[in-house]
């Protein structure tokens, strides 16, 4: 069976070749920075978390199992998510979100339309969510975690995860609507 490009890179990474690691960095660092920035806001912290993530990859590359194309990216992304969460926990205050908010009504059945909104703008909206909401939202939407899993990861109650998620979602919908309003207002 012919080895894919990704497999060849993995083999070189295993030998701890500097050029291979540089290649990995060049190919994926942009996407990993995006993943990390979803969780961590401060630029210097993003830098540190990513640096630690690469250290972690370097150390544990031998435990990586190639399971077809894209598995390398999935693996390194998971490491970045884990390192980001570790960072968030070390700066604990972020997770203590007050729970005395009202859960908004689940009546808005119209789906927000973000077709025309740029990735950059959506990213900004996600990053502007309060830390606790954002962490839950990211884990649920982008990491496909269930509320049960999120509750375990963040050491919070399961219903707290769910309510924070709904709140985050509502805030995001509101942000998208406001953005569209301001856009259309500009054209008129």
């Amino acid at each position, binding site marked *: 069976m012919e080895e894919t490009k990704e497999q060849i890179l993995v083999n070189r990474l295993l030998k701890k070749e500097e050029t291979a*690691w*540089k290649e990995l960095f060049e190919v994926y660092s*942009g996407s990993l920075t995006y993943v990390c920035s979803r969780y961590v806001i401060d630029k210097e912290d993003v830098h540190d978390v*990513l640096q630690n993530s690469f250290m972690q990859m370097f150390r544990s590359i031998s435990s990586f199992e190639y399971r077809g194309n894209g598995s390398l990216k999935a693996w390194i992304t998971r490491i970045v998510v884990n390192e980001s969460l570790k960072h968030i926990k070390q700066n604990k205050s972020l997770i203590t979100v007050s729970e005395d908010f009202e859960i908004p009504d689940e009546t808005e059945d119209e789906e927000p339309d973000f077709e025309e909104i740029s990735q950059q703008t959506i990213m900004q909206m996600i990053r502007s969510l309060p830390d606790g909401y954002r962490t839950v939202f990211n884990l649920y939407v982008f990491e496909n975690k269930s509320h049960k899993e999120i509750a375990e990861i963040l050491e919070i109650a399961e219903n707290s995860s769910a309510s924070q998620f709904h709140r985050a979602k509502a805030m995001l919908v509101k942000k998208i609507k406001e953005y569209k309003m301001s856009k259309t207002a500009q054209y008129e």
Partner: protein
Amino acid sequence: MNNEWLNDLRRKMEDHTEDVPDGLWKNIREELFVENEEKKGVGIGLAANDLKAKEKVTSTKGYRSLFYRIAGVAAVLGIFFIVGKMFDFNFENKTSNLIKPIDNHKYESSKTSSNHQKLSGKKTDTALQNFSERRNNLNTIEINNSNQIFVAKAFGKMVNKVRNQIDNPFLNTLDQNQNQSEKSNNQNTIQKEEITIAELKESEENQPDNELLSKEEKGWKDKLEEEKLKITNKKSKKVWMVSLLTGNASANSTEQFPGYATLNGTTYSLPEIRNLEMGEDPLMSILLANQDKKVDAKLKHKTPVTFGASLYYNLGKRWGIGTGINYTKLSSELTSGTSSNFVGSEQTIHYVGIPVQVNYNVIQKGAFTGYITGGGTVEKAVSGNIKTQYIVDGTVKEETKENISEKPVQVSVNGAVGLQLKIIKNIGIYAEPGVGYHFNDNSSLNTIYKEKPLNFNLKFGIRVSLD
């Protein structure tokens, strides 16, 4: 409930990238490839240090270094005074044979210092008793506490919350105990030091009286004194001096308390890692391996290391002011766990400071100047980091490094007595034993300055006068 749009959102954002932080690859490369080779050498050095550090954890440690300190001070003072007299003696006899007297005086000085050791030894005995009593108390607390941890562990997932609750108050009380004992030790030390210095001075003052000098010799001596005074008067014009110093501030300190601890105050917890699917996590391995063992956290502050360069400006014959710049490195080590499975953190903080000093020359004898000095230093932390190693079964499983973003300003005051020996025309060496006090910098950083704000230090240096 329709969350379909969230899937769209995920799909939309899938290929999104953000600007990579500046210099990230450079730092990673340095960590992984450049340092990798150098680190091996350093690693061995560190390991040796660790061994030493572990030995030092024994209860006698503090006192052994106290002996060194007292002996050091006694020896320095003794050598300076005796060598000073030796010079006079040589002048008197106008002999060029220096070697013999030096040997004699060396012997003498070692004798005096050993006497002082004996004297201070008696005093430390009582202190040692006190200390061992305190240790016993601590040990019982430790045992109680570890039992509780043990029980708590049996409850699996509840572990962390429970342990946090148990640990924190205990740690606090332990900290307080430690601090108190540390403080009283410090006071003991200082008192003793003062005593030894006083004794030394006394004996030095007595000695000249005992010496039988003939009238002729006294006459010679007086004349020489006058000549020297003239010379020094001529020379004590206002001059700038540059000095290099290295400081050795007191001993390091060690604390021990049960349970796990981190340098930044967070606690380790199991669930954090439970859902990571990327192979075994080292912290998990450590926590599991130590599950039914007594775990301790050991916090050790290493001796601060200071280098600096300073400028002195002589204001007349007796007074002088000085300023300059100096660099201090503070490092602390924290190990949590058992001897083969533990988390080791090393915190290093670099300070750059500006000292301001006022010197008052008390005596000037030939090439020697005895002075007292006092002043303050403002230091700013310029960088710091915490390196964490996870050691499982004696091997390093993982290593992380994070930078400390907090950069506090540290203010300290100090006073010292100093002795300077002029080697050649404008180069002199000096030794300054003194006492410094570091004010609380109100930061969360845990350093030796916090632990022991009042400490004894000994500075050595070279002064180059610029005329």
